[in-house]
């Protein structure tokens, strides 16, 4: 047995697993057959600088930044047997000219050098060419700080240019869409944006025109980049050629703090990074998660976020006296709410939770309903037209979680009955959290006026908040920790990027305090922190598998099989299978 294994060559051992042996900067590693050289280098933790290559897009190989030196064993003459060295590998014959690492796949016994005179000289040359027409307006360019051109100039550039002639003038500050500005002088012709619009967004409005040094990225005449995924081109642009109107000239990136979280605008729960400075959100960018949103996010979701500094945020508890809301402190408001709710029988009260709440908050809502003795606990369903990409048909981010936590196959069903009871006057008091009933449920302002008591937890002065007798200020999704389960059954977590404005509290705390005010005496197992609450929840639901907030991985984990899939991810998987993209 030992004989057969010792005599086996490395290439045979690798072939058994469908791998090949590659020597990268002097070290042999095994990588799957068909891997791109650039990915093999990434596996070997060798950085290959690149602009045009993006794993989710096809590889045209037009930036030439990823040049590396490659070598293969000499081809044996007819009849000659290949010779193997002591280590079982053939001698590598190095090619005199470099190859691009992004569009070539590895082969057995291949050698790759990511450093060395040849490679460094190539990179220097490529950088010099790329910078010939670049305006070098880094002080005003929004990309500065996260610009590949800046980074690679420092790492691989020459430091000075030999180009003495005038730079080519190209269009600057072109409005190519309602949300995007294009600066052609900064463009380095990597074509990432063109390929994204063509391959992923399926709306090929961008393209190159002119030739040679005059090549210009432009929009198809008469068209605009209105696609709902257009802003992703800004993210993938390695330089500052494409900038978002929303973030343009707002803040330099190095001041911003990044917080990983998830998007709460639809059931997909796209992974995002929230960029904040102080307590102000400056932008939202997609965070890569190949199971949920790949590297993308719809513009509509990216641009709709609530910031603690917004004007319409509620910053204090309100109690309505003689039809006018008056600010008060939490103690007063909680006591008033508890006293008012105690005036009603259990069957006169309804609790309206929301599938926009986190699992933790939903659990507290359920506890609240049982404290009130009411079995009328419902959520508001919210549907929208899916776009067969990332936007789900469910506008609520946590419907799956609500079904699980409220232990109800369809908690939205009860909503109709509750609406009916409200109209008939059977329900006299409601507690509503994170929902605007006039907007989502089929209730009108008159219906709300019929009610004797509305206690609401809200972030902004919505119609429901206006009609409420007692309003608690809550936190928006960017201000709280918590977990949600998306339409595909994936448990993901939100992180707090900001702190709630003014007196506002994180929702679960507000609900907990209301429960305490109702019961009079807080019990010992009242959670004191969100982690404690999360522990209670994971103990109550086996499905959650002990995934407390701190244990949920950053990319989430699938806990429930819902049978729903995300169309964009399906397409990407298919393209990956055909080898069109690396994925």
């Amino acid at each position, binding site marked *: 047995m030992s004989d057969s294994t010792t005599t086996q060559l490395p290439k045979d051992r690798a072939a058994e697993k469908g791998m090949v042996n590659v020597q990268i900067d002097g070290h042999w590693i095994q990588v799957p057959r068909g891997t791109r050289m650039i990915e093999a280098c990434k596996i070997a933790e060798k950085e290959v600088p690149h602009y045009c290559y993006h794993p989710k897009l096809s590889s045209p190989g037009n930036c030439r930044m990823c040049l590396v030196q490659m070598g293969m064993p000499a081809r044996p003459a007819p009849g000659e047997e290949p010779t193997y060295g002591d280590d079982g590998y053939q001698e590598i014959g190095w090619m005199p000219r470099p190859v691009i690492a992004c569009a070539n796949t590895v082969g057995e016994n291949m050698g790759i050098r990511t450093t060395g005179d040849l490679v460094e000289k190539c990179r220097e040359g490529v950088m010099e060419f790329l910078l010939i027409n670049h*305006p070098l307006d880094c002080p005003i360019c929004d990309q500065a700080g996260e610009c590949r051109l800046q980074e690679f100039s420092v790492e691989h550039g020459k430091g000075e240019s030999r180009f003495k002639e005038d730079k080519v003038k190209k269009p600057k500050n072109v409005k190519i869409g309602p949300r995007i500005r294009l600066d052609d002088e900064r463009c380095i012709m990597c074509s990432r944006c063109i390929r994204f619009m063509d391959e992923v967004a399926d709306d090929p409005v961008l393209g190159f025109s002119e030739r040679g040094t005059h090549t210009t990225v432009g929009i198809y005449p008469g068209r605009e980049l209105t696609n709902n995924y257009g802003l992703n081109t800004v993210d993938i642009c390695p330089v500052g050629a494409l900038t978002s109107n929303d973030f343009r000239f707002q803040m330099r990136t190095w001041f911003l703090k990044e917080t990983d979280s998830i998007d709460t605008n639809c059931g997909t729960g796209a992974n995002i990074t929230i960029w904040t400075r102080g307590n102000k959100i400056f932008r939202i960018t997609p965070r890569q998660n190949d199971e949920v949103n790949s590297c993308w996010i719809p513009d509509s979701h990216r641009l709709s976020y609530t910031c603690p500094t917004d004007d319409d945020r509620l910053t204090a508890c309100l109690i309505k006296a003689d039809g006018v809301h008056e600010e008060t402190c939490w103690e007063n408001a909680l006591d008033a709410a508890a006293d008012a709710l105690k005036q009603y029988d259990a069957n006169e009260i309804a609790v309206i939770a929301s599938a926009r709440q986190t699992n933790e908050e939903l659990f507290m809502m359920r506890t609240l309903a049982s404290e009130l003795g009411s079995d009328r606990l419902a959520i508001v369903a919210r549907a929208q037209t899916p776009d067969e990409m990332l936007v789900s048909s469910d506008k609520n981010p946590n419907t799956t979680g609500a079904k699980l936590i409220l232990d109800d196959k369809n908690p939205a069903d009860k909503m109709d009955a509750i609406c009916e009871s409200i109209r008939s006057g059977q329900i006299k008091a409601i507690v509503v959290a994170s929902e605007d009933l006039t907007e989502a449920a089929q209730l009108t302002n008159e219906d709300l006026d019929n009610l004797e008591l509305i206690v609401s937890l809200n972030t902004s002065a919505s119609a429901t908040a206006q009609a409420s007798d007692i309003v608690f200020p809550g936190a928006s999704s960017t201000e709280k920790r918590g977990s949600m389960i998306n339409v595909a059954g994936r448990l993901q977590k939100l992180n707090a990027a900001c702190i709630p404005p003014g007196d506002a509290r994180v929702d679960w705390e507000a609900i907990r305090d209301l429960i305490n005010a109702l019961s009079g005496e807080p019990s010992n197992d009242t959670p004191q922190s969100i982690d404690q609450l999360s522990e209670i929840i994971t103990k109550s639901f086996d499905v959650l598998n002990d995934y407390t907030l701190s244990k949920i991985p950053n990319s989430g984990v699938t806990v429930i099989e819902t049978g729903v899939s995300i169309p964009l991810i399906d397409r990407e998987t298919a393209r990956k299978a055909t080898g069109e993209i690396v994925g």
Partner: protein
Amino acid sequence: MATIKVTRPKLTLLEKIYLPAVIKGLCITFMHAIRSMLGKTPGANENFNSSGLGVTMQYPEQKWDDQLPDYYRGVPALVTDEEQRERCVSCQLCEFICPPKAIAIIPDEIESDDPWAKVEKRPKEFDIDMTRCIYCGMCEEVCPEQAIYLRKDYAMTGLSREDMVNDKKRLYEIGGVRTGLVNKWNEIK
């Protein structure tokens, strides 16, 4: 660390009594006081318009302004170029580098009908909190547009904290015009 053994000096009885040393010291200070009052101590009358008593300068009456060296770091201020364009493009590098976080900038886009629309960016608000500023000159050093300079003014006073915050208007008043530095934004580029 090597241990260094220090041998204590052997003191004579007179030195141990300590009083002669005290008296000697008193004599030294007394003689110095006499010379000081006569204006004969080193430094007096030599430099900086001194008052004649020691090296002290009588500040509001006598000032150092003529002797300020070129590298003197006084109040930081913004400058415009010869065509009255504000040099600052609001890159916020000074805000970033500022050790005591005295600088606060809110960037703004230049409207397209502005003659300098090509520059695209300028500060909407540029505040330097002089109660925080430590006059280190990092902002001047880091500025890629040569827009901020430490001037020779040093007498910054105010009656409130708000008074001590120099806003954009005041910064340009202090800074004035500097010519012939960056050509980047001219048509020549």
